[in-house]
């Protein structure tokens, strides 16, 4: 994508985005709700069309010409309620250009894989929402796409199915499929992707491999858990390397001063008082994201965002427990 811009009336949904997705990559689109992720994906899918800018998908100027090579699991997804699962998948497979012969075996194989072999002859409406979601995933991968786009694929799934789907996504990637994976739950992106693109207010704010992000955003916080209850944090604050201390759930987080050496700080903290745990906290994508926003916008927006992102992550932790 080169300088892609999309507006809805007065609202600018996507503003001048440049994106390159390498062949075989597993790229995460992250950002809070309403950031412009789905609009970007819909433009890649040629369901929406940019107002300006250029776009090329799998070497074609529009996804319309290569739809049969793309698999898509939209965020707004549904099934034909009255249709039988097998028939539905057949219909989608045929629409994606698969030949009729051998299609049934392929479908049954996939249903086996998503642990729903018995639903072939069931009506879609008889399936639970999570089951329907897995069936929809199958409709996206049935035709062995070169590019697989998944918009919030885990929303509404239980932990067991989340793991199942995660493994299937990885498997697809290992077989050479390029994957774009969009989520507002950054922890998920961190777990799966090797490259993330952050979108905020319709603009790209980060586009890096996960590894290099970690390297670039050096840890600036130490998490510690004192042995005794009613611990006086002023001891820690007095160490000179610590800017501030705040309680986070069961532990404390000490933010280091810009001059402090993180590794030395860990030693200082560990010897300052009897500690159950002292840990150098690596920044999560979420922390990175908030830091970026903090830099570009104001503290207020960042704190709003922190709340929004935390809410998303809380959902994710809820299901992964």
């Amino acid at each position: 994508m080169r300088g892609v811009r999309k507006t809805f009336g007065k609202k600018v949904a996507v503003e001048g985005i440049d994106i390159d997705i390498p062949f075989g990559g597993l790229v995460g689109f992250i950002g809070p709700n309403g950031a412009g992720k789905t609009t970007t994906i819909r433009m890649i899918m040629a369901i929406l069309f940019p107002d300006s800018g250029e776009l090329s998908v799998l070497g074609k100027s529009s996804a319309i010409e290569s739809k049969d090579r793309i698999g898509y699991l939209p965020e707004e997804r549904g099934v034909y309620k009255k249709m039988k699962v097998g028939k539905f998948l057949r219909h989608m497979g045929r629409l994606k250009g698969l030949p009729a012969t051998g299609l049934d075996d392929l479908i049954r194989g996939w249903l086996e894989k998503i642990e729903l072999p018995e639903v072939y002859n069931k009506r879609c409406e008889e399936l639970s929402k999570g089951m329907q979601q897995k069936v929809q995933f199958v409709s996206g991968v049935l035709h062995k796409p070169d590019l697989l786009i998944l918009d919030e694929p885990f929303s509404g799934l239980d932990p067991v199915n989340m793991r199942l789907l995660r493994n299937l996504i990885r498997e697809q990637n290992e077989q050479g499929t390029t994957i774009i994976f969009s989520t507002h739950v950054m922890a998920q992106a961190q777990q799966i992707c090797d490259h993330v693109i952050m979108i905020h207010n319709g603009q790209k704010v980060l586009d890096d491999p996960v590894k290099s992000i970690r390297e670039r955003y050096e840890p600036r916080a130490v998490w510690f858990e004192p042995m005794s209850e009613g611990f006086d944090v002023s001891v820690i604050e007095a160490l000179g390397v610590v800017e501030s201390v705040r309680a986070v759930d069961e532990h404390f987080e000490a933010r280091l001063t810009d001059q402090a050496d993180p590794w030395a700080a860990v030693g200082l903290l560990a010897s300052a008082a009897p500690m159950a745990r002292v840990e150098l906290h690596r920044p999560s994508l979420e922390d990175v994201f908030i830091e970026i926003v903090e830099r570009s916008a104001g503290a207020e927006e960042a704190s709003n965002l922190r709340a929004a992102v935390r809410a998303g992550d809380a959902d994710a932790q809820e299901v992964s427990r």
Partner: protein
Amino acid sequence: MNAGKVIRIAGREFASTALTKGFIIGALVVPAVIAALMPVIIILISSAKPPADQGEVALIDRSGAVGTLFTEMLEPEQIIESRREQFEAMKKAASDMLGLDIDSISQDQLDLMSDEQMKSLFEQFGVPQLRVSDLGADTDVEAQQAILRENVSKPGGDADRGLLAVAVVDADAVVKSDDAEQYGAFSVYTIPKLDDRTVDEIRGALRRSILDRRYEAAGMDGAAIDALTNVNANRTQEVTETGTREAAFELQMLIPGAFMILMLMGVMAGGQYLLTTTIEEKSSRVVELLLSAVSSVELMTGKIVGQMAVGLTLLLIYNAVGIVALFVFERQDMINGSTIAWMLLFFSLAYFMFASIMAAIGSAVNELREAQAMMTPVMLLVMIPYFFFLPVTRDPGSVLSTTLSFIPPISPYIMIMRIASNTPPPMWQILLAVAVNVVGVFVFVWLAAKVFRVGLLMFGKPPNIRTLIKWVRMA
């Protein structure tokens, strides 16, 4: 556009609509059941015996001339006879209208029953049992009305209700008084809930008895006057290649209307189904999954084509029924193959325009309820051909008819009425109408495709006209 995908979408559309129990029941079974039930319904109706009025009719005959005749005419036997005559007259009028030669059609083709059966049917329907009491010329009408008033609340049914009606014949009703220009009148007073047929019977008997007595008084022969005033007219005959047959102008006027209505039915059915399935796909959110496999234009085209097949199926079924009926009545030459071919062509054109509107509406709203508001103007558009049914069939070549047949989207309906009429338009007009409609179809489909593309992914408040125009510009 990928034709294979369009056909696939169309196939699913057709299968999910026409191969469902609902459709088969609605389109085929219900009409068949109704047809099969007709005799049963007739038997049921005829076996139900509605209560007949029983009671007294008081006659105050100031002319002193009609009493006996009136009493005779209200005998049950006489009433049955007069009802049978009325029925015969009705039957003749109906067959005249449809251009049927009653005598050439065998009894069981036209009559559901023989004369005997008919008579017993009339008896079963309940013949009023009326006693006439001739009260004499001087009886006070007010006093009789008072007796009637007492009977007002008496229950009906098979019981004798006493005095039901008072008939008053003026003194000069039969013999005109010297200085008057007109004869005197008769009046009838009844209780409120008297069967209207009973009232008709009483009035009819009064009228006929007064007339008979007038003829007598004037020294004329009633039968001779009847014969003089009744002109027997033979039906208009059409001379055909093989002989002659009775003309059926009314039927000839109905045939174009039938074509128009059939076409409209097919178009409406297909369009309605299209609206429903579009809303369904949108509200079940399956649409974005579909859009990952096909473009919005392919999706819309496939859906329109699929539902066109549904409409066409209905059209062909009803057409076949109609053609069979025409063969039964030996009127098969009233339509011909080319008319049907034109109908199929104009159906497709009319359908594409209507269906585009339906697809656009379906994509713009979230549920059927929201579509209703937008449907009102569309329905008015659909009603237009109905409004012009009479003027067009009466004069298919008029300036009005000709003009209307070039205005899409009503043009196809008007044109088919003109083609099916007995003065079909010249070929250049038909071809011009086809051309105009093809252009119309492109415009409608083009506009609808734009609304469709934007609308499908828009959830929330249904759009107004201004928003729709914005969508067209946007897409």
